[in-house]
């Protein structure tokens, strides 16, 4: 019985030690000039990540809602993962489907984990 309790405590302690700590980060996106090609429009965003961590791994979800030519409204979420430091900015391009209308876009931090020391 004692051995079982000891084993359980050990398992919980190991799990707590293994669980990665999280951090907070905010994402800001600014629309840039469209990248227009023959059949489709590419939306370009300058994305910046605000975090107090000197180094963190951040997952950012980009959700785009498009209306297709037949009226169907499709919401698609894509995830980008990056190693960031304060003030990190990067470019995100999204190609709108030919004949579709882009209704809405949203950037959201899905996960922030500090880099291991």
């Amino acid at each position, binding site marked *: 019985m004692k051995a079982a309790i000891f084993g359980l405590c050990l398992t919980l302690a190991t799990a707590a030690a293994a669980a990665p700590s999280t951090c907070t980060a905010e994402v800001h996106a600014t629309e840039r000039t469209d990248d227009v090609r023959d059949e489709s429009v590419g939306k370009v965003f300058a994305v910046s990540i605000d975090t107090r961590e000197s180094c963190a791994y951040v997952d950012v979800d980009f959700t785009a809602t498009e209306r*297709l030519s*037949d009226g*169907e409204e*499709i919401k698609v979420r*894509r*995830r980008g993962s990056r190693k960031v430091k304060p003030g990190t900015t990067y470019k995100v391009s999204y190609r709108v489907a030919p004949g579709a209308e882009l209704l809405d876009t949203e950037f959201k931090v899905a996960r922030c984990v500090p880099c291991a020391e």
Partner: protein
Amino acid sequence: MNAILLSLMLAGTTWAALPSANETQAMRAELQKQRQDIVAGVLELTDDEALAFWPAYRDYRVEMARLGDRAVKLIDEFVANHDKLSDAQATRLVDEHLAIQAERVAVRQRHIKVFRKILPATKVARFVQIENKLDATIDHELAMAVPLAMEPAGE
């Protein structure tokens, strides 16, 4: 979900007169608007599945929408001429109808291969089922509104 599907199935407009091009487009848009919500309700995807599936679904639906546009154009031409169809026109319209049907199957077969890399086979099967039900609902509404072909008067 069933309530959404039922309301979608009942939402079709009944026309006293033949539909115009705009009415055909509007009916299709009304039925398509909730399509992704219905598919999502049926598939019950995990977060990882959703991240992989919806971009692939979007690419698939873009191709199907193009074929749908061709079908609407065909119906509009047919409705405008159904009471004065020449043999050549009737043949061309039927051939275009069959070409659209064949391309729908080809597009579906091509994309199913992608979906099978993302989802378990049972979820792919469920996806095909709900696609068939939604398409059948739309086809039924269109069929109700489209008249039968007639020869030109005096022949």
